[in-house]
Structure formats: C-alpha cells, structure tokens
C-alpha cells in the first residue's frame, strides 16, 4: 500500500481546495437555477475553508480556523439574504431562471 506510506502534505489539501473552487466557479457559469448558483458559491467558500484549515494546521496557527468560523457565519448570512431575495422574486414570477432576468441590458 503505497498510499498508506505517504502523508498528504498541505499542498495536497490546497490543490484539492483549488479544484473544488474551480468547480464551484464553473458551476456558477453553467447553471441557470439561482438556488444552484448559490450552492456553487457555497462550494467555493468551502474550498476557502479547506485552504484555511490546511494552512492553519501547517503553521500551527489558529487564526486560520478562526477565519473559517467567520466564513461560515458569512456564508449563512449570505444564504439567508439570498434566499430572501429569491423568494421575493419567484413569488412574482414562479420558475424564473437566471436567464429570464435580463430586462436590464446594454
């Protein structure tokens, strides 16, 4: 078991995070459902969290974890507000996707 031998270094975690971040970004560009777009943002935030934790572990410095704590708060708040806005919109025009909201342009 080569896998058993090797220790995953911080770099591994960061690379994973980077990939996760990228996927999130890609998702935001391809999905039309606003809710799923939010989820993609969540993915990106999680990537950030992972990076923070990995680094904090590497440095032996708790700041990173504290940062994650705040990120979670922010994420929660964002979702709440975002969903609030989405609700108020979809109330008026049910089933609207991001593409449908394009009155303002030019």
């Amino acid at each position: 078991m080569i896998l058993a031998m090797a220790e995953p270094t911080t770099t591994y975690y960061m690379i994973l995070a980077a990939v996760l971040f990228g996927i999130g970004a890609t998702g935001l560009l391809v999905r039309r459902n606003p809710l799923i777009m939010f989820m993609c943002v969540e993915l990106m935030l999680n990537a950030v969290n992972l990076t923070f934790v990995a680094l904090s572990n590497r440095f032996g410095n708790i700041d990173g974890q504290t940062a994650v704590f705040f990120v979670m708060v922010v994420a929660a708040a964002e979702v709440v507000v975002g969903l609030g806005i989405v609700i108020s919109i979809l109330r008026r025009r049910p089933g609207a996707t991001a593409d449908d909201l394009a009155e303002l342009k030019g």
Partner: protein
Amino acid sequence: MLDVIWLIPAFPLAGFILILLFGRKLGEPKAGFLAATMVLASFVVSVGTYFDLLSMDAHDRHHVETLFSWVPVSSLQINMAFLADPLSIAMCLFVTGVGFLIHLFAIGYMHGDPKFSKFFLYLNLFVLSMTLLVLGENLLVTFLGWEGVGTCSYFLISFWHTRDSAATAGKKAFITNRIGDWGFMLAMFLGFEAVGSVSYGTLNGAAESGALAQSTATAIALLLFVGAVGKSAQLPLYLWLPDAMEGPTPVSALIHAATMVTAGVFLMTRMNPMLAAASDYAPTIIAWVGAITALFAATIAVAQNDIKKVLAYSTVSQLGYMFLAVGSGAYVAAIFHMVTHAFFKALMFLGSGSVIHGMHEEQDMRKMGKLIKLMPVTASTFIVGWLAIAGVFPFSGFWSKDEILLFALVKSPALYAIGLVTAVLTAFYMTRQVIMVFFGEAKWESHAEEHGAHGEFKPHESPPIMLFPLVVLAGLAFAGGIIQLPSFGIVPEAWRHKLEQWLEPVIEAGEAHITDTGAYDNKAWLAVVASACAFAGIGAAIAIYAKHKAKPIEPKILADAWKYDSTVSAFMGGPGRKAFDAVAWFDKTIVDGAVNGTGKLVQGTGGQIRKLQTGNVRNYAGIVGVGVVLLLTWFVLGRGVL
C-alpha cells in the same frame, strides 16, 4: 511755402471730408465745385512750392516735411513725411492741374447723375491719394497713396455698380493691381532688411554710395518694377485697363490716362539710382517689357470700335513708351512724355466723353461720323490731341516721342525699330478714330431710334463747362513741348532742356549720357524719320477710311486683343476655379471628415462593446471569470512562476 506742402494733400482731404459729411446737402453742382476748388487750391500750393524750389540752388532742391512718426518699431522707423523735390513737385503740378480741369469737366459730364456728390467724393479721395503717392518721402507713404489710388479706381470703375460689367471691371482692376503690390511690398521688405529703412533718401543714397550689394539692388529694382507693371498696365498685367473704361469718362481721363497709371513710371524714376546700381539686365528687361507692350497694345488699338477702348489701348501703348524710356535710362524723356501724354490723352478722353455725352451714351464709333459739324469745339480740340499723339511737328507729342526714340536707339536698334513701328501704328489708329468719329458720313442717323431719342435725333455740343477744359488742354497739348526742347540750332539756348535741368538733381544718378553717341549726332535725321513714320500712318489711315482706297485690315484676333484676356479669364474660370473648389472639397471631406469620423468611430465602438452587456448574469459571471484568469495569469505566471 515748402513747409506747408502738406497742404497739397490736405485740401483734397478736406474736400473729401466735407463732401462725406455734407455731400448730400450740397448736392449738384455745389459738391462738384467744392471738390474742384480744393484741387485748384492744392494746385496753387504746388505752384507756390515750385517757385520756392526754383529760387533755390539746384542741389538744395530737396525738402523733407515730417508730420508725425507713423510706424515706429525699434529698428524700423517710418515717418509720415513728404518730400518736396523737383520730381515730386513736377508731378504735383500736373496731377493737380490736370486734375482740376477734369473736375470741371466732370461737373458737366456727371450732370443729373443721382450719385453726383459721391462721384466727387471719390475724385477728391483719389487726388489725395495721388498727391500722397508722389509726395511720399519713403516707400511706405508712397505705398499708402499707391493703394489709395488703386482703391479709388476700384470705386470709380465700379461707380455704376448696378452694371455687372462695371462691378467686375472694378474688382479685376483691384486684384490685378494687388499682384503688382505684392512685388512692391517685397521690395520694401528687402529694402528694410538691406538698409534698415524705406525712405528714398536712405535707399537711393545706399545705392549711389555702393553700400548696397548689386544683387540686392537688382532685386529691389525688379520687384518695384513688378509693382509698376501692375499699376501702369504693362504686359502681362495690363488686362484691367481696357476694362476700366467701364468707369465714367472723366475717371478714364484722370486716372487711367493722366495720373494713376503713370505712377509706375514715377516710381521707377524716383528709384532711378537703385536701377543704376542694379545689374545691366534689369533696365534691359524694363525696356523690352515697355517696348513690347507698346507695340502689342498699338496693334490691338487698330481694330477697336469702342471710342474709349481705342484710347485705352493707346494709353497702354504710350505707357509702354515711357517704360521703354525708363529702361533706356531716359528718365527725363519718360517724365516729359508722361506730362505731354497727360495733356493730350486727357484731352482726347475728355473729348470722347464730350462725344459720348453728345451721342447720348453711344460709344461705338461705327455709329458716329461727321460730328465735326455738330460739335466743332470738341472736334477741333480732339484733332489737336490727335496730331500731338501722332507725333506731328510741332505738337508736344513730337518732342517727347522723338527724345524717347533717340535714347532707345542708343540702347538698342531693335528697341528703336519697335518704337518706330509703334509710332506708325499710333498715327494710324488715331487717324482712323478721328475719321470714324468726326468725318466720313454720319452713321448715327440710321441708328437714331436705338438711342431712345424720341423724334429726330441730333448729337449736340457739350456745355461750356465741359468745353473749357478741352480748350485749355488742347493748348497744352499743342505747346507742351516747350518744357523740354532739344538742342537744335533754331531753338534758343535758354529754352533748351528746361525739364532736364529741373529734374537733374533727382535723376543724375540714373540718366543715361548719350551726348557722345552717333545717334545723338544724327538726331536731326531721327526726327525726320519719326515724322515720316507719323505721316505714313496718317496717310495710310486716310487712304483706307476716308478715301476707301483699300479694305480695312481689322482681323478678329486684333479686335479680340490677341485672345490674351479671354485666355486668362478662361484659365481663372476653368482650372483655377477647379483647383479652389478642390481645396474647399478637401477641407469639407478630408479634414472635417476626419474629425467627424473620429466621433462616429468612438460611438460605433461603444455600440459594439455594449453588445457584451447582454443582461444575462451568467455572461457577466463569465466576463468576471475571464478577468480573474487574466489577472491570475499576470500575477502567477507573469510575476510568480516565470
């Protein structure tokens, strides 16, 4: 009297202002008399000045009267100053003298014209400018007068401006003159650069003392000659003069025969030391231009039917004579001919005016004839003028023309030959004119109705006020020769070369000395030859037009003035105008187009870029993403890894 020479221009100026203010109130004929009086006054002053100078020793006859500093800028100091010396006073005498007579004539001639007073306004302004021109102590004052007379002639030619031909003629005269002025101005600049002044004293002094490089002197002389060519209607700029006949006849007499057109000759004489200091080819050029113009114009005059056109071309031709003289170094002769010409040509113009007046504004000689019966005074005086210009002994023209030919022969036989031919032609076409107008059968009867003359039409003699000047001028035209009699046996010593002695201090530098040439020894013979030519011309004309011995030789080409004028105007109206239009097009399309195009371009770009702003949030995210990638590329690859 010398220190008040400023009165000479001052009087016409006063007249101008008075008429400007009260002209309408004065009306006819008071305005006319006012104007005439003013000119008479300055004539009187001139005479007074003349005697003052006369009382002086010959070489002190040079007085500068400075009024005020005109254009003073550091090294350039130009005064409004007048120069009283033999030349300027001689000019003043005949300008104001002849001017006065023509004013009188005009009072009669312009009778009934709605713009009577305005006419005299212009005339006084003209006399003012002309006196400034001749009295100027420096080139700039002269130029002031120079342009002034040009402007006045513009006013007067287009005096009847509702006639398109008149308006056009006036414009043409002004612009053509401007071409000459260009040379005049450059001459002034060059002069200032060379000697730091434009006053005649300094310029000529430098020329005499040799302080002036020959090349510079040549350039100045020739540039001034360009100006002279414009003003004195020489080839190639003579075009405006024949058209100038659109003006009232007194104007033609005063401006386009007696005074203004001779300004060129005056200028060259004034600057004769410069010409002397110039390279030899300079005077030669002048002489040839003069000679060719003389011949050229004479040939044209042969085939003209407009009574004034004939005189106009003959004026051009006679001016050519004067330049021939100038070029030959015969400044005295030039001035002499200028004066005599002023007499007889003014006389004939006024005569023609009287005829036109009598013929109810008819100018076509083919519709005249036999007028000697109806207007005896006009006719007889005109005949005096005719004999004078034809150069018949002892009329004034004979003396002046003879002297010019003498110098021309010394200069070059070719020039002399041209001079003779011109003399023949002159005699010929003048005789032709006299016959057509005053003799032969009366053709005007058949044309009666054309003159809108109700009932039976009859040309009439002009009023005395018009005839008086004719008579006086006739006298002068006959006796004018005495001011410069040659040294012939019969002529008393005391009477010989009066004018030459008078002008001597001014022209000593430039005057050619011919006393020891072969031509001078045989000048008696030359006189004979000249007279012979005159009679030949007269005889031929009589044979053809009176006796009808032969068909008139009046080829179309001559009637059309060798098509020169038409060619030039064709060029101006054709290619010239096209070129101008091209520039206007370039400005509108290219230059302005570029400016407006830039504006369009910016807006167009905006219109394109704004297509990116689709309004779709995912596209926006994409654009942001691209931005991210680019930034990362710069930082990570650009600054980091690589």
